[in-house]
């Protein structure tokens, strides 16, 4: 029986004074999607680059598909593919030329390389754009040619580094469909993302990473359960009422409510939902008009906030390419 897809022990990468990856232990089984979730600069890309044999770890060890990433790097390379955060195809070349190049590098010859390229272009909806330079592609098409380039030879493990960053919703859904198709085929996908809903949608298991360390691991439901059974979102009509509402809710429910950047909103995680109806009545009795009173599963945003103490706000800049 084949071992784990990815196994690391105390993986470390240091850049100057920054411990970009600061001791990561992973044990990721084969099959399905494993999400690597964290804000910009958390160390996701650096970790992926070590696993994909692009940079050497400063300490610790890592095995990918039963091969050591340092001593057996070539074996790792022949089993996995990487779709980087930035275009990992040649933008000066056409889509077909890019795929033919990769096909030739995998050992396809002449006509076979062209056939393989055309098959992938067709499957990825790029046949009409095959003879255009990739730099003239839209963001979504570029992502697709990138992923197609990773599938010239079916990999056992595919690293996808922020595959939907900067894509519009339609293109994002297309990428998600592609990822699901890969998983159905049996490919293991390791996905980094700073989008919580993406991890929620796709990943079977999620590692939350912050400042180079794994701070939580589990299924999306497990992570959500770790912050309580539900979250109460309350939004008052008049911001002057917020403090009064906060006092009433705290009294009735026995939990502390957090304020957010929205001056009318209050939010709290609940372990016990039993007092919620009473709390609502109490607010009504105090004549506090409500815009929203919603009890729901916590979002991964809230999970992240409770785990790290800071929000997972995606910034505009990409994570350092290092």
């Amino acid at each position, binding site marked *: 029986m084949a071992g784990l897809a990815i196994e690391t022990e105390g993986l470390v990468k240091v850049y100057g004074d920054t411990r970009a990856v600061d001791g990561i232990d992973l044990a990721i089984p084969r099959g399905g999607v494993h999400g690597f979730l964290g804000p910009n600069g958390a160390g996701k890309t650096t970790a992926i*680059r070590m696993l*994909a*044999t*692009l*940079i*050497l770890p400063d300490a610790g060890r890592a095995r990918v598909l039963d091969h050591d990433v340092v001593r057996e790097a*070539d074996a790792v*390379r*022949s089993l*996995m*593919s*990487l779709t*980087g*955060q*930035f*275009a*990992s*195809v*040649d*933008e*000066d*070349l*056409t889509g077909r*030329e890019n795929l033919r*190049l*990769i096909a*030739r*590098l*995998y*050992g*396809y*010859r002449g006509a*076979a390389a062209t056939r*393989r390229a055309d*098959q*992938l272009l*067709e*499957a990825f*909806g790029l046949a*009409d*754009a095959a003879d255009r*330079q990739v730099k003239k592609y*839209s963001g*979504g*098409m570029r992502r*697709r040619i990138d992923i197609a*380039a990773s*599938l010239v*030879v*079916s990999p056992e493990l595919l690293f996808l580094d922020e595959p939907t960053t900067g894509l519009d919703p339609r293109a994002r859904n*297309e990428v998600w*469909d*592609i990822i*699901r*198709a*890969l998983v159905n*085929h049996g*490919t293991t996908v390791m996905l980094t993302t700073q989008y919580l809903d993406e991890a929620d949608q796709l990943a079977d298991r999620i590692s939350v990473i912050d400042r180079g360390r794994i701070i939580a691991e589990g299924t999306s439901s497990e992570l959500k359960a770790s912050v309580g059974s539900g979250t109460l979102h309350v939004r008052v009509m008049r911001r002057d009422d917020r403090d009064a509402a906060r006092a009433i809710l705290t009294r009735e429910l026995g939990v502390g409510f957090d304020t957010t950047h929205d001056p009318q909103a209050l939010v709290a995680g609940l372990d016990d939902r039993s007092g919620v109806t009473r709390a609502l009545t109490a607010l009504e009795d105090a004549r506090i008009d409500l815009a929203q009173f919603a009890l729901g599963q916590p979002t991964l945003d809230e999970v992240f906030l409770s785990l790290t103490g800071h929000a997972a706000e995606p910034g505009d800049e990409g994570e350092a*390419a*290092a």
Partner: protein
Amino acid sequence: MTAQASRQQEESAPRVEAIAAALVGGSRPSRPSPLSSSISFGWRALLKIKHVPEQLADVTLFPVIMTLLFTFLFGGAIAGSVDSYIAYIAPGVLVQSVLFITMYSASTLRTDIDRGVFDRFRSLPIWRPSPLIGMLLGDAVRYSLGAAVTAAVCLLIGWRPEGGFLGVLAGVGVVLTFAFGLGWLWLFFGLILRTPGSVTAVSTIVLMPVLFGSNIFVDPSTMPGWLQGWVEINPVSDLVTTTRAFMNGTPVGPELGVTLAWSAGLVAVFGSLTMWRYRNPR
């Protein structure tokens, strides 16, 4: 409206079943040889020339300007007339043009790395130096073109090489060999320097004293002693002497061996440094 419709058509959606079929169809051929993968990368470099022909401006216009400028600027002053100077300077200008062009390999590599396409190449199970060797192979085409343009301009303004066609060809061969060695120095710079701008700046600083502190333009016997010492150890002087001998049909001296040794040394030293750095950049 029409534009939008055509955009819609071009961006046809990916087909999940077809992707699944393509995954099954991706059976693995046997791994290509080091030569084959290097040639594939050379093919990539040629495709880039096809798509971005502007990048040939440096190998076509630049040698023309160099040749005309230096021949007419120095010709009269140094040898009394252009005609008597051309046999001396033509091989030198050819060396200068080609070596100047080699410098661009560094910024090409830097741009590749910045764009992320090198991560793809480095993650492939291929012979490790092949992307770099392929890049230099593609550059060899550019160098050859630069050499051909320079030779053509020199012929136009009156150069009649005594060594004949074969002599010129042999001279160009030596220049290309040395250029291949020098290419590894630029690739190393391309890996260790962070921006294409700094790559060009540093390369220029390195190249200038080597090119101008040589016997390309003038006989070193007119120079002060310290400069003669520099010209003497400068490998470009050996290269120019060899090229001149081949092209002018005079006996080729020990400088040929020195030039080839330098070329091999550059590959050994900077090839190793480059591959060491390539394995773990930054």
